[in-house]
């Protein structure tokens, strides 16, 4: 047997998954690209080549609104998840160090939310935010004598509500990643800092934060891409309303295809989503520590 040439030897190993990815990702992406240059409709067998799907988007008022929504939703969700995730991770690590009981319980509860399907998450929060007199949060507010809040019917509040629901579900992911990063910080650094008489804040600022920076950056982009592509929660929570107040890009693309039946336009929108994701991916790879490549 001639010993394998390394390059060729890898091929049979890679082939099954590469074929699968080519069939289920590459081909559809190119097909979507083709569709974006047509006026294809879900109901119409005849499609003609057209730039209308793309040029129609350029500078269109709804797209501007939707992009603004997307930015607000994504940034809000990501920052919220990172901040809350960091708080919980710090708390858990701090509690573990002090050998406090109950960290496992907290971790489990937070992670349990992550396991809930996004679609169910939207439904649950719809029940919670319901503005009917018997809605969960508002009836509780009324019970303690506070005025009810227009969680979903006020445009600004609706976006905040959607972000809250997303944070509630997604925090677990960033918590775990940051928890792992925190645990990997050499304890002797803190011991050295303690000997140097550093305050708690100084320890956080000069040791914890710098060590977390790569993890924070990488996670921020990962979560950003996930949030960008997620539409289940918003779909089930507000459907994009009131008006277009919570219609994010992914939901807009979904609505365009499945409510407006405009396949070509929907394909163009989904490709825009892809481009944004890819730009973020490139940022991610630039931020990745060198050795990881």
């Amino acid at each position, binding site marked *: 047997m001639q010993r394998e040439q390394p390059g060729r030897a890898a091929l049979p190993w890679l082939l099954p998954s590469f074929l699968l990815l080519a069939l289920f*990702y590459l081909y559809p*992406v190119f097909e979507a690209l083709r569709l974006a240059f047509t006026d294809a409709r879900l109901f119409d067998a005849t499609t003609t080549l057209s730039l209308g799907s793309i040029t129609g988007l350029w500078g269109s008022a709804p797209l501007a609104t939707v992009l603004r929504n997307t930015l607000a939703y994504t940034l809000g969700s990501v920052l919220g998840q990172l901040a809350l995730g960091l708080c919980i991770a710090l*708390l858990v690590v701090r509690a573990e160090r002090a050998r406090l009981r109950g960290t496992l319980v907290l971790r489990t509860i937070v992670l349990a939310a992550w*396991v809930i*399907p996004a679609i169910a998450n939207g439904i649950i929060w719809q029940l919670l935010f319901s503005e009917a007199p018997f809605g969960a949060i508002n009836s*509780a507010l009324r019970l303690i004598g506070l005025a009810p809040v227009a969680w979903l019917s006020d445009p600004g509040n609706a976006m905040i509500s959607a972000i809250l629901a997303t944070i509630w579900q997604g925090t677990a992911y960033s918590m775990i990643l940051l928890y792992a990063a925190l645990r990997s910080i050499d304890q002797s650094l803190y011991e050295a800092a303690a000997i140097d008489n550093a305050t708690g804040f100084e320890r956080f600022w000069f040791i914890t934060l710098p060590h977390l920076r790569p993890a924070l950056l990488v996670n921020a982009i990962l979560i950003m891409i996930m949030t960008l592509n997620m539409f289940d929660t918003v779909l089930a929570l507000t459907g994009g309303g009131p008006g277009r107040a919570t219609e994010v890009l992914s939901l807009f693309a979904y609505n365009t295809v499945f409510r407006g039946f405009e396949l070509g336009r929907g394909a163009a929108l989904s490709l825009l989503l892809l481009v944004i994701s890819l730009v973020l991916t490139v940022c991610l790879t630039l931020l990745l520590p060198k050795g990881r490549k």
Partner: protein
Amino acid sequence: MVRSRGERLSDIAVYLAMALLALVFLLPILWLLSLALRTQAEVFLGAARFIPEAPTLDNFASVLRDGGFQSYIWNTVKLSALGAAGAVGFAAPAAYAFSRFSFRGKGAMMLGILSVQMVSGLVILIPLYRMLDRLGLLESHFGTTLLYIAAGVPVTIWLLKIAFDTIPQSLDDAAAIDGLSRLESFLLITLPLAAPGLISAFILNLILNWSQFLIPFIMLSADEKWPISVAIFRFAGASSAATTQLLAAACLLAILPALAVFVILQRWILAALMAGAVKD
């Protein structure tokens, strides 16, 4: 170890913060439970009846008694498990190649796979719908499982590569000297040793598949084929107000299996998540 007064005070603060966070994360699920235990009349009483006066299991019973619910759960289990097993099966050889072989363009390929992960289902589902249609795989669990597998493969390749990287290369060398082919050494040496990584990847896929909504939503129209996520969404759109308590019960029952799997197998899921996290 003697703890100082200051430390004990800060321990108490930590406890309080932990309790508060636990409550925040628990309340939505508790509210769901509260609704599911109420009678219809009590649903309209809002937070005042957080603890139902006359808790009833009727809602759970009527959901569980329903043949449809059982089939949704069974479909979800089937799709999730087959999808997860398939993803691991497809990803393992590729991950092995990325871990063990050196070849030109390896880094680029790894990044390419990572960026594939970024492709939203929305981008590709309509072309996929038409493709599966031509292949006669639409409306079938087989075709849907293939999509689940494809969705899981990229991240699974990464997870398994990290798992394989931790197995010393010299074991492969030893196996080669013992006369094993690459394939044999992969099957007999690497895979058994990577079992924890394989299990972690499987369970992570399982949980992600449990939440999968878009693929079955588009690919399956017959309700006897639906997984629970689609059924719950349809149900929320088709229920009448008189059934909020049933919706809550169905929701709770739908997330319960995933919760149970998660709580029992937490260690493996954490392992999978953290493997990706600390690798640098």
